[in-house]
């Protein structure tokens, strides 16, 4: 934790005095800062740390939902989970969803941001339109698209003059969830890109223009490199969010697993084990496995990024 004493750049005359006072300041700083942080820490411990520890403990037991004393069964839950085809299927569905959503949303957010950035008039309206869906709760977005995709009465088939069974055929069901998600969440990444675009200094473009670079060159050699960090951020956030897909998928399939179990996500599988089959211990083990997978993805990304930065130097 950095304290005020370290970060404040004192005028030269005060520096000598400050050197002596720094230790005192640090102590006082912690006292005050500590009290400010305490409510957050207390809640964080109560609602994150404690459940996590409890979950790890439960994953080694055969606890059920009734809260009876559970027996310790070692790694049995983990062994069973790793041999459970349903778990692998649902993990596959979440991974498939992620593979589709992440590139699509990144490209789409970039294109929309470019559009909004270069439009001269009514900019606020475009920004609002692209960002607005993101403000909807997932149940609203899911229900909305459930209607739009409805084979008999839905607008999607009507507009395109097709007869696609979006929600009832396993070839399309996950695609429908992906389309819903794109529409619903692209606004967030769009906003990140828009802010980054506005941060690119204008003189770079001017210099390039003087050198005779056309619009394509300017985008490839200035815009994209300047957006590299934000693209990395967008991709990382999207991967972590997409792996945890749950709500729009279950809303669109009325809390079922979708046609021939094609939209059952990993989170949904965990929920079913815990609250339909009442196997709290098993569900905890699955959650921990999922936690490890997500943590591994996040660490891998950090490692890749560091390597790239070192390579760039």
């Amino acid at each position, binding site marked *: 934790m950095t304290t005020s004493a370290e970060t404040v750049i004192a005028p030269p005359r005060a520096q000598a005095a400050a050197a002596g006072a720094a230790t005192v300041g640090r102590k006082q700083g912690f006292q005050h800062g500590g009290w400010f942080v305490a409510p957050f820490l207390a809640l964080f411990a109560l609602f994150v740390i404690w459940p996590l520890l409890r979950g790890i403990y439960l994953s080694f037991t055969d606890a059920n939902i009734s809260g009876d004393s559970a027996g310790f069964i070692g790694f049995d839950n983990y062994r069973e989970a790793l041999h459970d085809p349903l778990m692998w299927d649902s993990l596959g569905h979440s991974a498939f969803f992620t593979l589709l959503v992440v590139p699509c949303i990144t490209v789409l957010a970039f294109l929309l941001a470019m559009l909004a950035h270069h439009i001269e008039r009514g900019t606020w309206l475009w920004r609002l339109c692209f960002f607005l869906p993101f403000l909807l709760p997932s149940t609203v977005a899911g229900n909305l698209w459930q209607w739009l995709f409805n084979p008999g009465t839905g607008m999607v088939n009507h507009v395109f003059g097709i007869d696609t069974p979006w929600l*009832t055929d396993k070839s399309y069901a996950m695609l429908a969830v992906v389309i819903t998600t794109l529409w619903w969440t692209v606004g967030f990444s769009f906003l990140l890109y828009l802010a980054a675009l506005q941060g690119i200094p204008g003189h770079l473009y001017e210099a390039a223009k003087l050198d005779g670079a056309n619009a394509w060159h300017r985008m490839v050699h200035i815009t994209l490199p300047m957006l590299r960090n934000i693209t990395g951020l967008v991709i990382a956030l999207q991967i972590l969010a997409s792996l945890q897909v749950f709500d729009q998928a279950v809303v669109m399939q009325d809390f079922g697993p979708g046609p021939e179990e094609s939209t059952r996500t990993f989170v949904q599988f965990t929920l079913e084990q815990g609250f339909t089959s009442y196997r709290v211990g098993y569900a905890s083990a699955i959650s921990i496995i999922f936690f490890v997978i997500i943590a591994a993805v996040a660490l891998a990304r950090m490692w890749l990024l560091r390597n790239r930065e070192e390579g760039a130097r």
Partner: protein
Amino acid sequence: MGRPGLNRRQLLAGIGGLTVAGSFGFAALGTGADALASSASTRVRYWNLFSGGDGYNMIAMLDAFRKEHPGIDVKDSTLQWGSPFYTKLAMAAAGNRAPDLGVMHLGRVTGFSPGRLLDPWDVGLLAKYGVKEADFNPALWKRAVIDGKLYALPLDIHVQLCFYRKDVLKKTGLIGDDGRLVPVTSTDGWFDMLKEAKKATRKGLQTIGLWVNDQNFQWWFFVAFYTQLGGTWFNADNTEVTFDTDKATQVLEFLRQHVADGYANPGMGSVGAEQFVNGTPFTWEGNWSVPVFSGAKLEYGATPLPPVFGKQATHAESHSFVLPHQAGRGGATNEGAHQLAAYVVKHARQWAAGGHIPAYTPTLSTAAYKKLSPQNEYVSAMDHQANEPKVWFAGSTGILAQRVGPIVVSSTLGSARPQAVARRMKGALTQLLAMKNPMDGKTAAQGGAAA
């Protein structure tokens, strides 16, 4: 940090906090406050899962009870149907915050730790309020008995029906002189019937709606026809799977043919009822669609699912009253719960309007019930119910349906071959039979669920 001096802002914040806390407190006390407000001496808390028309009928019956028994204050709560309801009921019973009376699907009772999460009914008390075993279908009553004790009091059975539009089929010769659908006794006969019906069907409509993409309905239909073939699930001790893959294949092929021959459109799987209102000649639905179709003023009839394999059997589940476990169950509240359940079971004429068949058989022979149409056309279903096996993982929206339902759907829609699906079903049944009930750590064989 010393004690803070209390300044105006903190004082206001404190008062605000107290107000919030107070409102929570009163929310928690709400039920108590209600009881105090009414002059009733006994309060019965009753949880159910009835919404829509069923909810309306249930509330009407409760109001009638309240009028007749002002000394008992019924506090009813309606929760969302399906898994969430059972989860809440289990947790409440485990945490000793259970309601005095609850409703469950009979098929789920076996897996609900009867004896630990459920208390048995006092048969003597029920008899005092006029409800006894002799008034029920014996098979239905037996399903509610576990380890020799009655754990569920059946209110109704609800069955899968074949609804048909009399006005659409009039020109086809499929409606007999009695104004009802001519009987069918073979699969060929049934498909001949659909062929005729298709000619009378308007363009843009399917010939029959049968929920081809729905795991619950497909499973219920499978259970019905598999029972018609005399198929069994497990041996008497629940130690062995006796599931017959040949019979299962026959059933799966039969269901599949509706889609393959173009009578049921997979794109319209979930809109069978709406299409029926628009003029589709047939739809297979639960009897809870009766108020919907009657409300739409349709000229229609409803029979149990056709006995295409030669024997009458249609899928049936049952709403039944249960006593969620309470550490100190007894006294006036418990008696009130018995009295209320007995009253509703005996006065289920209103309930029959929702399409359900009352479990209390004296109701079925009343003139008022016999006048109900189409109820009088399918009341016979009480005597040929096709049920899921009596094991801990069965029952409405239970593990068995969740595991096997989607497999049946894959066959009906044609993405998996019936023989392969039948084998997969047997595999799933074998797996489930070996599985321990998480509630008590016992397999089906150790569960002692035999009546």
